[in-house]
């Protein structure tokens, strides 16, 4: 049921999504707090949009959540605490950098694995194909 509800919310949000990005004046204490807020919400997903950050989304969901995050910042909560609270409430789906978990092992280690595999291929290729520099004739011509 919750799943179905989520689907309905997403569909409604998409159907009514105005393309405007959020402009949401919040009374920050100072520039540092504003930067911190922007950096934090830029890396969070707006749960009801197709692919927008919490910072830029104009959906009501995002507006309310931005306000809540803002309030938590005023209460002196750290980014870590805010993220933990969000994850407890909305699951890790809200994070644009998914934490390492059994389901994300391939995501995080896939690239290093490809790099190592490719590196081995390149090393083998270079070992087979390269010769000592003095055994190589100067390239005649323009060198281009």
């Amino acid at each position, binding site marked *: 049921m919750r799943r179905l509800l989520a*689907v309905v919310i*997403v569909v409604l949000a*998409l159907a009514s999504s*105005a*393309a*405007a*990005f*959020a*402009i*949401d*004046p*919040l009374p920050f204490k100072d*520039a540092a707090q*504003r930067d911190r807020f*922007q950096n934090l919400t*830029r*890396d969070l*997903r707006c749960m009801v949009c*197709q*692919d927008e*950050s919490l910072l*830029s989304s104009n959906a009501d969901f995002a507006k309310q959540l931005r306000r809540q995050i803002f309030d938590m910042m005023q209460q002196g909560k750290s980014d870590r605490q805010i993220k933990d609270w969000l994850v407890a409430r909305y*699951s*890790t*789906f*809200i*994070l*644009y*950098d*998914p934490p390492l978990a059994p*389901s*994300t092992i*391939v*995501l995080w280690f*896939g*690239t290093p694995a*490809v*790099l190592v595999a*490719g*590196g081995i291929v*390149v090393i083998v*290729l*270079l070992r*087979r*194909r*390269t*010769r*000592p*520099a003095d*055994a*190589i*004739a*100067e*390239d005649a011509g*323009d*060198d*281009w």
Partner: protein
Amino acid sequence: MSPELGQVALILALLLSGLQCLLPIIGAWRGSKPLMATASTLAIGQFTFVAMAFGILMWAFATNDFSVAYVAQNSNLSLPLFYKLAAVWGAHEGSLLLWMLILNLWTVALVAFGNRLPEAFFSRVIGVLGFVSFGFLLYMITTSNPFGRMLPAPGNGADLNPVLQDPGLTFHPPTLYMGYVGFSVAFAFAIAALLGGELKSTWVRWARPWTNAAWGFLTLGIVAGSAWAYYELGWGGWWFWDPVENASFMPWLIGAALIHAQAITDKRDGLRAWTLLLSIFGFAFSLLGTFLVRSGLLTSVHAFAFSPARGVFILVYLAVVVGGSLLLYALRAPKVTGGKSFALASRETLMVLGNLMLTVACAMVMLGTLYPLVGEALNIGRISVGPPYFGPLFMLLMTPLVLALPFGPLSRWGKADLTVWKRALARIVAMAVAAGIVGFLFGARGWHQLLGVTAATWVMAGVLFFAIKRWREAPRGKRYPFEMLGMMLAHFGIGVFIAGAILTRSMSVEQDVSMKPGSSVGIGPYAFRFEGVRELPGPNYRAEQGTMVITRDGAPVATLHPQKRTYTGGQVQTEAAIQAGVFRDLYVSLGDPLGDDAWSLRVYDKPFVRWIWGGGVLMMLGGFAVVLDKRFRLKRVEETETIRPHPAPATPRKLAEGEA
């Protein structure tokens, strides 16, 4: 003109593309000259019908023929004519027709400029393009017909999506598709070489200008898309690692790798198999991009499952093209590694390492883009992968490439002169450090900004060092052939891009404010004074237009007019107002009325943001410059027995002119 004629034209084009795939390839296989001779005629015939279909759809838009469902969904009586014509590719069916038209343009360009290729090879290339075309035409006719009728016709259309009512739209998809589809030419060359069992790799030289041109267009398409998102979405960002963006970035990365692999194979006969593989993957990623964007898969895996015909067709097509090509590759790719040998310190080694990093970066982007989709399909939980995943990984992977970049051109083929490396290293380090210090004196703080300045200078200084060395050593008139000029432009563009990307991110100030007429807000040295909002009528919208006066130390800098438009369909669209400059953009976007005459506004100071696109434009110019190189103009005799007969052999045609 009846839209049914467009439908008929598409069906005729489908038939011709089938013949274009079969006859020339059979002709090349059986050595039959009459069959091979059909290649050009069939290609031109197919182009004629596709262009006719395209023209008929455009006519339907121009004349408001709302009995055509596609027109009714994407146009409106009050839509300006310019956007009516651009609306042809404003949605799924029409953009596929544009894809087809562009594929045919590339094919016809090949017929025009490539007709000095050996006849059998040329026939195979045209045949492979015919196959590509056949698949897409079949897809259009069976699942995505743009000429479907809607009866009774509505009195007025639903209007074009307002996000797309912008000059950027007229520009972005066609250039992007020129790039995507352009890789089909490199692909066709590779498949033709495999089919024909080419032992020599002369075909790679023939393919190079085409690959460079396609990559140049793709770069332009990505730049246009990024710039468009920046000013049209009222968002101020320029890249979000969104799946749609990634879809175009993957072929770009493979294309960049392919350009270099082709250079090695052309000059040193070095990476034959790898070049073939990259040619196949470049096109495969173009197809994957089309598939991702067009199947509805990105909106939701479930939406895809509900109306699967379109997605499944492309998926099967993708599987046939990629699987078939890889099978052919496995059977026919050169088993013997050939090529001139080289020392460990050489241009070859550096280019191979660059290829490695570019392809791994592509794999990383693919992993991050597809992972959430696969995860959702397999029910292992919903995952979001976004900028904090892609950004740092991409920077990590590109760091060795950027560090090595100045030394590639400075190394000779075969073996590098180590004293040149040392001299260059000393000067590049000196310039990069000096730039860092200058940046620091000008107020750059934080490792991000200093890193941006030094890394960008590193690359640009490397190019300058190379240019000076070349100026001194090469004889006058032969200093910078176009191929080299292209390299220098593109590499310098990377430096410009790095400066823009890193500095914009670390120096931007972005503020959402609530303002009443007469109040002002300060950002850095600039004061923004809000003068209120008034209503303005537009052709198919009503605009609320704000006025913002920007001053610096009391002296006026600019007066900006951000708009918020409400279109006839009820959609709301912001139009940011931007004071553009070489060193900074000042950006204002209008939000909502907050009551009591107050409005919410977003004001930005974005230093160096233009450098991002400036760098991209330089890379694009680099790709196009290479096309002009004399080396790529086909000589009349390559292999005497297979040369195509030519009626007027006296005047050698210029291969490259007019391609860019």
